[in-house]
């Protein structure tokens, strides 16, 4: 197994250098499992920053606790690995302090649909200008495979050996009903689309909610696997009107996993812009 590890890492490193992946990365090698969807997401975030010409020192990242939460540990930016569920309030404070910085919140599904779920409605309705990347693998990765708020009904997990009795939450629907002004869904297996979405989200002036479907290859071998995700994602059709809230709501409720931008409202000032204009 060790030689598999070494090959795998070499391969990654090659790839990484090619794409200027290292610009925003520390020497720290991610502790994620080989095959985890988080590698692709990280790559897309890096690529987005690169294409947007962001300086390392102008990026602030607040993350929660979980496999996803480890993200800033591997990044050469100003990073704050906070508490489980609390990336959003900390990111909010960063932005309110220093409007000129680009601020990301990184969260797992446990992080921000479960324990930190209470913060989401409020960052959305306040429209504070941060970008939230939700790494949704529909499981608790770091604590080894318990149900999360997005685990499918009846799935067997380490906390629900007889099947999950709870209906999963729908992150995109929630963000929409909270009044988020930018709502999108991406898939960790599609780096190009991810990067396009991320760039839009990062440049959106206001709160951006990006739901990212990603497999936990270690603790979910049944539902949100690479294979099933690939089979079930579908890009939102080109003609879709991103300013139509009702339509966005409608397709968000579908079981088909649409990816792309659901909703993008340009006319709502961000929290700080609103305060200034008064």
């Amino acid at each position, binding site marked *: 197994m060790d030689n598999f590890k070494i090959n795998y890492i070499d391969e990654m490193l090659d790839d990484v250098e090619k794409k200027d992946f290292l610009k925003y990365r520390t020497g720290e090698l991610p502790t994620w499992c080989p095959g985890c969807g988080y590698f692709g997401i990280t790559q897309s975030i890096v690529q987005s920053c690169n294409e947007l010409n962001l300086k390392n020192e102008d990026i602030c990242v607040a993350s929660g606790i979980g496999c996803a939460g480890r993200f800033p540990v591997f990044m050469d930016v100003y990073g704050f690995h906070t*508490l489980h569920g609390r990336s*959003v*309030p900390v990111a909010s*404070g960063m932005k*309110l302090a*220093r409007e000129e910085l680009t601020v990301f919140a990184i969260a797992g599904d446990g992080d921000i649909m479960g324990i930190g779920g209470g913060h989401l409605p409020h960052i959305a309705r306040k429209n504070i200008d941060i970008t939230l990347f939700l790494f949704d693998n529909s499981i608790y990765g770091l604590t080894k495979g318990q149900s999360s708020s997005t685990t499918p009904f009846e799935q067997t997990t380490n906390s629900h050996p007889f099947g999950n009795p709870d209906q999963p939450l729908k992150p995109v629907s929630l963000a929409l009903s909270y009044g988020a002004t930018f709502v999108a869904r991406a898939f960790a297996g599609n780096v190009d689309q991810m990067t396009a979405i991320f760039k839009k989200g990062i440049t959106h002036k206001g709160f951006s909610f990006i739901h990212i479907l990603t497999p936990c290859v270690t603790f979910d071998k049944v539902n949100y696997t690479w294979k099933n995700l690939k089979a079930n994602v579908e890009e939102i059709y080109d003609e879709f009107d991103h300013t139509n809230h009702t339509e966005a709501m409608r397709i968000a409720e579908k079981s088909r996993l649409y990816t792309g931008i659901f909703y993008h409202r340009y006319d709502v000032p961000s929290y700080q812009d609103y305060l200034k204009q008064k």
Partner: protein
Amino acid sequence: MSNTDIVLEICGSAGEGTISSGEIFNRYISSIDFEIMSFDTYPSEIRGFGKCVAHSRFSTQKIFTPGKYTDILIALNDAHSISQLGHLKDTGVVIYDSKPPKYHEEDKSIVGWMEPGMISYGIPFNDLAQKAAGNSRGRNMVALGAVCALFGVDHEEFKNTIIQRYAKKKQIVIDNNVNSFVEGYNWANDNLTKIDSISFKKGKNKNEKESIIINGNQAVAKAAIDSELHLYAGYPITPATKIMEILSHELPKKNGIMLQTEDEISAIGNVLGAGFAGKRSMTATSGPGFALMTEFMGLSVMAQIPAVIVNSQRGGPSTGLPTKTEQSDFNAAVNGGTGDLPRFVIAPASVEECYDGTTLAFYLAEKYQTLVVILLDFFLSNSIRNIDEPTPPTEKMLNSNIAPNEKELKDYVRFKETKTGVSPRSIPGTPNGMYTTTGLENNERGKPQYDGKLHTKMSDMRYRKLNSALNDVPKPKWTGPKKDIDVGILSWGSSAGAAYEAATIANKNGHRVAVLSSLVVFPVNEVDLTKFCNESKQILIPELNYSGQYANFIASYINRPVERLNMVSGLPMASEDVLSKIDEMIAS
């Protein structure tokens, strides 16, 4: 000139202008150079007809407590005022409405409840107000007029204070109030025969400094603004809400932000975010909200990010007694949180110290990259004083972050070990200063790592900061004799006032009583503490809680038994309480 030291209370229903007449009285009395200390009590129900009391003590001497016994009671509502007689002095004065509006007649008149020896002056508040303005609203002003007539106060100057108070209102409001006041003054002059011996014309000659009338919450808010606070993030809770409400007015003027969050967890989370980003930030709360901040308190310390939390204590535990004062969050402030969690705890003893403690808090939080808790209490938050314009923070205090220099930024090691425990902290936006911090144990570069040696070293660093800071904070205040002390009082927070006053009296009575109290209650200055205890035959720790939280805490430093005075009456500690304990200790 003989000393004056008087307690005056105005008592009425919500809606009768009780609190505002107290406010005017304080303004005037402060303008003629008395030292004042005042304290308002509101009903604990939201509305209804609850009892309000404006309690003021004013004196030609320095005072430290609001005074336990009342000299003058103004009863705007007899039913409510009757229970105030319980702490009226034996020869105290009651000023009451001799012809109250109809609805008062059902209650027994306050006169029937007075003890022999007490003095009463009946004045037709209601009739006179009706006469002056056509309604009963001005009853409180009538009463103030009578006070001026009875106690020899310059009624023209007093009138000006009333005019100033209502300056922003319509002319009719000003007129009605002034006319009511004049009616009261004239009626009392014409009809009353003075049988008490109280009078107050002018206080001591004060020093040159500008003086302001301010309560603890206002002092904290003012200090925060003066300390260049950028973000206040908070959630309403009695008795801290006012800090937020003041800052919601003041911060926007300075391009700062008052953020009302969805809960206290988010509030402290925002504070840490702003702290990380290099701006000064704070929150204020009380017990239940403070409890919710527990997890984030740990993160501030571990991730080494400045955070200032004001906890204005109320009666506990749990939701407790929201409108009563208590000092029972000492444990939570000093030892709250999981793991070994050093932090600073500042406990002002007075309104002045509310200001100084807050400017100090911002200085320490930023310089030592950690958590500072400021412990107020319901009493301090609402206690009103006239104080000298406080000294604003110095340049050094305003810029206390230690940033890495260029050389250090060449190969930046965020948590580099230092003698002081403080490692230079770079602020986002600084090129080459990038780092990631975490609530996990981590090595000098911030990488999560769990080996035993590292954990020991980093724990050491975190505690070392506190020791380094001991030279950076005001030394404990030692008042009274320096040696051969009969009773040494270790005091903290708002009950220190009662300790000072009691010690002064005891010393006059020929005993040797000293007080040691410190603005910074954690970390402990062990040198001074030990010296003080070594000189003290007996130690007394008075505090407003049941379990003796400070006494328990201090035990591990002094390793000897102490006498405790614990009260949970919901009221501030009185010098009389401390004095009788001192007497008891000396007698035994």
